[in-house]
C-alpha cells in the first residue's frame, strides 16, 4: 500500500486539501492524546477563555488512553478509542483551529460538516492494534490533567504512525465507501449507500 507521509506539528490547509478518504498515511511528529474527560475540560476552558493544555492551531488529537509504560519504554499499548464519544466536542475544537483527529469508528453529521467547514481531517487507525501502534511512539509526556490517569493529555512524538483518511473536506467517508463496496444485503432500512 503506497503511503502519504505527513509531518507535524502544524497540519496546514494545503495538506488537508490534498487528502482524500481512503488514503493511507504515515504520520510523524507531535500529536496529542485526549479522550472523553479531557475533551470536556478543554471545551470548558475554551468557553471560559482559560489557558488550554496546548495550542490547538494546526494540531492533531489522537483519541487514546494508553496502558502504563513498562520500565524503559516511552508508553504502553496505545490504540485508538471509539470516536463518536468525542462528537459533542469535536466541532468546537475544529472551530478553534484543530486540524486532525485520529480514532476509530464513525462520526456524526455535525462533525462531518465541521470537517468540511473548518478544513479538518478525520483519520481512522486500526482499533485494537495497540501493541503494534505503541511501536510508533518514540516519546510521551503528560502535559495536562494528570489526575485523569489514562485520560490525561499526553504529548506524543510518533514516527510513521499508520492510519487511513476516513472523513475528508469533500464530505467523503471511507467507512461508508468501504462498506458499500462489499455489502451483499440491499436493505436501506439497515444501511443507506
Amino acid at each position: 500500500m503506497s503511503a502519504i507521509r505527513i509531518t507535524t506539528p502544524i497540519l496546514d490547509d494545503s495538506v488537508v486539501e490534498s487528502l482524500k478518504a481512503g488514503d493511507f498515511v504515515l504520520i510523524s511528529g507531535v500529536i496529542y492524546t485526549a479522550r472523553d474527560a479531557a475533551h470536556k475540560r478543554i471545551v470548558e476552558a475554551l468557553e471560559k477563555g482559560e489557558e488550554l493544555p496546548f495550542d490547538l492551531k494546526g494540531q492533531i488529537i489522537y483519541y487514546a488512553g494508553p496502558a502504563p509504560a513498562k520500565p524503559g519504554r516511552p508508553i504502553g499499548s496505545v490504540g485508538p478509542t471509539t470516536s463518536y464519544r468525542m462528537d459533542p466536542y469535536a466541532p468546537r475544537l475544529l472551530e478553534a483551529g484543530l486540524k486532525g483527529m485520529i480514532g476509530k469508528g464513525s462520526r456524526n453529521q455535525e462533525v462531518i460538516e465541521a470537517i468540511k467547514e473548518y478544513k479538518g481531517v478525520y483519520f481512522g487507525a486500526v482499533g485494537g492494534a495497540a501493541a503494534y501502534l505503541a511501536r510508533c511512539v518514540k516519546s510521551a509526556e503528560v502535559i495536562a490533567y494528570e489526575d485523569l490517569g489514562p485520560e490525561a493529555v499526553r504529548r506524543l512524538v510518533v514516527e510513521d504512525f499508520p492510519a487511513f483518511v476516513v472523513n475528508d473536506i469533500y464530505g467523503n467517508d471511507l467507512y461508508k465507501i468501504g462498506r458499500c463496496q462489499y455489502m451483499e444485503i440491499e436493505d436501506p432500512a439497515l444501511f443507506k449507500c
Partner: protein
Amino acid sequence: MREIRVDEVRKVVKKLCMEANYYLPQDVLNAFEEGKKKEASPVGKNVFDILKENAKIAATEEIPYCQDTGFAVIFLEIGQDVRFVGGNLEEAINRGVAEGYTEGYLRKSIVSDPLFDRRNTGNNTPAVIHYRIVPGDKVKITMAAKGGGSENMSRLAMLKPADGIEGVKKFVIRTVSDAGPNPCPPITVGVGIGGTFEKVAYLAKKALLRPIGHRNPDPRYAKLEEELLEEINKLGIGPSGFGGKVTALDVKVEWYPCHIASLPVAVNIQCHASRHKEIEL
C-alpha cells in the same frame, strides 16, 4: 469438604488478568488466519496481518494486546463440596484483579460511580463477578477482559413470542449493522435467547466464552449460529470497518427456557481482542 484458601484464588486471578491481556487464545489466532483467507478486500487482508503482528508483539513483549484492558469479568464455577477458608472470597478476587492490573502494567479503566464522581478507582476494581454452584469439589475460574468499545455496542430487546426466529435474526443483524466499525471488527457475536431480562444478558456474555468454531450442541441453534454468521458477513463492514467480507469471526448462541409471554434477546458484541482465560483449581 475440600478446603481452598482464598489467597490461592487471589494468586490465580492475578495471573489470569495478566495472561488474558498478553496472550490471545489460540482459537482467535486461528480465526485470524482463516479470516485473512476469506477476506476479499486488500485493506481487510492488511488489517488481519496487523492484528496477527499485534498479537505477536503483545505475547513476546508481554504487553497488553489492546490498551483497553477491560472490565475484569470473573466467572466462578464452585463445586458444592468446596469450602473457602482464610478470608473473604470476594475481597480476594478483587485483590487479585488490583494486583494483576497494577503489576502487569494494564490500564485501569473503572470509575467509582457511573453518574456523579466518575473518579478512576486506580486499580481496575471492582470486578464483575458471576458465581455458579456446581456438583463436585473443583473450582473453575474464568477471566474475561471486556473492553468498553464493543460492550457499548451491545443491546437487549424483549421481543414478542410472535416475532419468532425472524424477529431474533433481525434484531441481531440490526445490532451488528448499527455498530458498524465502532466495536473493532472482526467481532464475535454472543447472543442470548430466552430466560428473563437479566438472564438473557448473562447468556449472551457466557456465549462469548465458547471457543470459535464450536457450535451449540442443539442442532437447531447450531444452524441459527451459522445462518446469522452468514448474514452478518454480508453487511460489508469488514475488518476494522474499512469494508470487507469478514465482519464477524463467529456467532455464539446460548438459550434458556422462557415465560409464555416473553422472547428476550441479548446481543453482546466482542471485539477481535477476545481475551479470556480459565484455570481449574
